[in-house]
């Protein structure tokens, strides 16, 4: 990953003295995994996860990172990156800790672009590379393919090469089945020197929409004009009978001045008061607004959280190079314990796949989810950037007009004006007139 180098520096700073103690890196220090989920519409979602326990070094050669080609990855419909860093105990008594770094990249490939119209896909078509060898430092290097709905019969799809093992678990509240390809398994790669996982649809999949998750959210800005607007977040709870609370965290830049007395939360048309609000107002040019609320979402409902704001005029040096593009507002973060349909047994952190263990929960009746809404683009009123000198001159002229008028009136007094007797031109004219014999002026 291109971000690996600066990330390495970042993690190095967190290191402390423990990092370089061990001479030999322990074997379970790096795990990498790729989860491929075909979506009913034909698109393919691929999620890479790399987990490093700190004591080892961070370079990776081979393994799954060969698939990370920027030109293919950024031709996707959606991509998201995450970095999680946390301390973990090295032993049961937690006498020493090491640092865990988890890097995640999720992309959604558009079937039409990659598959040339057909819904079949393969690793080569998506990434233009195939897997040749596992990462030498990795203790685990696996590819999981989601074959949930099409398990037993080979009539709907065929996965090539056929998987040797499958994995079943309750992920995010629903039961899922994955085909596992273990790169460290020598039998896997030896045959053809590379692993190109392919999926062919025997029967066209019904274009049903993917099952709606229990919690999803949307955010948008409404209003017109450059003076004010309204920020609205819609929270959908699609569970048929369970209500659950959601923690909503909003960080809004200072130049969108929020008015917290206009904050309204409505569910099903009625007002919904949050159980907890923490609001930290912004300081101009110092800190952004911080709004955190715990909202109870009733079952099967849409909750709308809206707040009005005013757009500030900034100094001309504070605008981005393209000020009419707008300013970005970071996404809101929603954290919730969502009740799951299927009870899951508590997950064992070490044994389970990485994609299952990011937010471990102790009881199986709900799972933790953290959602990010869309980032928003907001326009601010702009001054004219070509005018600084003109503005200074004109404003100072107006001030000088005032100063001049008042100076005149304060320091001078009225006098009767005496008619002017002399004047060079008049005298000259009189001279000429005398010479001509005409009466003087």
């Amino acid at each position, binding site marked *: 990953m291109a971000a690996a180098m600066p990330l390495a520096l970042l993690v190095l700073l967190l290191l402390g003295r423990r990092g370089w103690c061990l001479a030999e890196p322990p074997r379970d220090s790096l795990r990498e995994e790729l989860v491929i989920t075909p979506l009913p519409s034909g698109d393919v979602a691929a999620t890479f996860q790399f987990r490093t326990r700190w004591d080892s070094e961070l370079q990776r050669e081979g393994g799954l990172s060969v698939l990370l080609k920027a030109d293919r990855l950024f031709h996707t419909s959606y991509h998201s990156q995450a970095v999680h860093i946390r301390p973990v105990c090295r032993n049961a008594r937690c006498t020493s800790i090491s640092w865990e770094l988890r890097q995640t990249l999720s992309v959604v490939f558009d079937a039409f672009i990659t598959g040339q119209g057909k819904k079949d896909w393969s690793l080569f078509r998506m990434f233009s590379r195939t897997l040749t060898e596992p990462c030498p430092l990795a203790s685990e290097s696996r590819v999981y393919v989601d074959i949930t709905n099409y398990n037993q019969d080979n009539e709907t799809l065929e996965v090539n090469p056929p998987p040797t093992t499958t994995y079943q678990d309750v992920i995010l509240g629903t039961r899922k089945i994955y085909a596992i390809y273990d790169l460290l398994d020598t039998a896997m790669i030896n045959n053809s020197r590379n692993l190109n996982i392919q999926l062919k649809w025997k029967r066209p999949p019904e274009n049903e929409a993917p099952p709606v998750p229990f919690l999803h959210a949307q955010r948008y800005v409404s209003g017109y004009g450059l003076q004010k607007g309204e920020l609205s977040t819609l929270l959908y709870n699609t569970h048929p009978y369970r209500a659950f609370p959601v923690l909503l965290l909003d960080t809004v830049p200072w130049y969108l001045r929020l008015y917290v007395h206009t904050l309204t939360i409505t569910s099903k048309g009625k007002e919904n008061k949050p159980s907890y609000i923490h609001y930290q107002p912004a300081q101009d040019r110092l800190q952004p607004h911080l709004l955190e609320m715990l909202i109870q979402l009733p079952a099967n409902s849409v909750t709308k959280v809206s707040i009005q704001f005013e757009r500030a005029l900034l100094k001309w040096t504070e605008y981005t190079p393209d000020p009419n593009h707008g300013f970005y507002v970071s996404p809101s973060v929603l954290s919730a314990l969502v009740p799951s349909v299927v009870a899951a047994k508590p997950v064992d952190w070490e044994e389970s796949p990485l994609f299952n263990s990011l937010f471990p929960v102790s009881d199986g009746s709900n799972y933790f989810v953290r959602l990010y809404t869309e980032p928003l683009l907001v326009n601010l009123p702009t001054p*004219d950037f070509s005018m600084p000198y003109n503005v200074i001159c004109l404003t100072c002229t107006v001030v000088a007009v005032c100063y001049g008028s008042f100076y005149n009136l304060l320091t001078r007094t009225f006098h009767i004006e005496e008619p002017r007797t002399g004047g060079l031109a008049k005298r000259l004219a009189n001279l000429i007139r005398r010479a001509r014999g005409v009466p003087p002026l």
Partner: protein
Amino acid sequence: MAAPLALVLVVAVTVRAALFRSSLAEFISERVEVVSPLSSWKRVVEGLSLLDLGVSPYSGAVFHETPLIIYLFHFLIDYAELVFMITDALTAIALYFAIQDFNKVVFKKQKLLLELDQYAPDVAELIRTPMEMRYIPLKVALLQCFPQCYFSCLSDIPVSVPPYLVCPRTPLSPPAAVHTCENEEQGLLDLFLGVCHDVCGKPSGNRLPLLLPSQLLGFHPRSLWLYCWVSPDFKLSCAVKEGLSVPDLTPNIGLFWYFFAEMFEHFSLFFVCVFQINVFFYTIPLAIKLKEHPIFFMFIQIAIIAIFKSYPTVGDVALYMAFFPVWNHLYRFLRNIFVLTCIIIVCSLLFPVLWHLWIYAGSANSNFFYAITLTFNVGQILLISDYFYAFLRREYYLTHGLYLTAKDGTEAMLVLK
């Protein structure tokens, strides 16, 4: 005179009540010409709701009022409209009586000077008679009620709440209990104190206008202790910083916002100081020149503050314009009154148009609004200096005679030299 005044008040209250109930209320209360970041009612409501949330209203950059406003409106929030209407009515009444007393003082002084033969013989036309001065207080009350009610009563606290906690007839009431107010409208308070002093014959009427500039900062120097006692979060530095350093660049009808939006960072402190000094430094020369005429001095000072303060609004403009009937007799000496009236009216009409074009239609840019701001301020400056010129000229005529002749017998021209 009670009946016409009562009629004026009734009509004013009715119009305000009608405006509050109509859909115009919300529209006007958000206009930038009418509200400023320091005097917006929306921000007061925001401060109160921050207080309800348990957050100090001064921890953000939205709320810039004094602590006594918070306490006052904490209890009166549901009756806010009523409070504004009552205080506006009180303003009108107070102004009415103040100007009535002022007229009596003027007339008395004029009589004294006439007897002392200080006036030139042929200035009979310039002497003011009680007859012509009879309706002036009413006109002042009228002018105070109406332009303001269209604009300020809906949205900001300025001329309303403040000085009405002092009764203008009690001389020298301790200012501390009084200064719950908004920035410059304390000028009105001092006007009253000044009038009290005049009425009560104290010679110190000149000192009070000197205190006017301190009102710019939003509080009277003596009431600081009260604010700090009332609310520990109210830091002097916050209040002074907001008023003086102009961090909030929201467009308004003044000159500051665009200037500091386009300022080179390097010079920003220098120009802030220059602009703020500009408000204050006319005080002493004016005090010296106008030491015999404290009320006119106060009028000029209020006008200068209204033009050069950090966040002016039409409420401030309407405040000094309410005093024009008092100087009606200067009309014959005004030189450019027609042009200036046209400028001010046209600019007032163009403000909302160009704001709409910039912010909503997107077809104009900020320069258009800024140009109208410049023109409006030039118009105001020239208007005030015109009145000053007329005043000085009348004084000259009073002492030197109205029909002046030059040495050779022709009609004389007066110039400032």
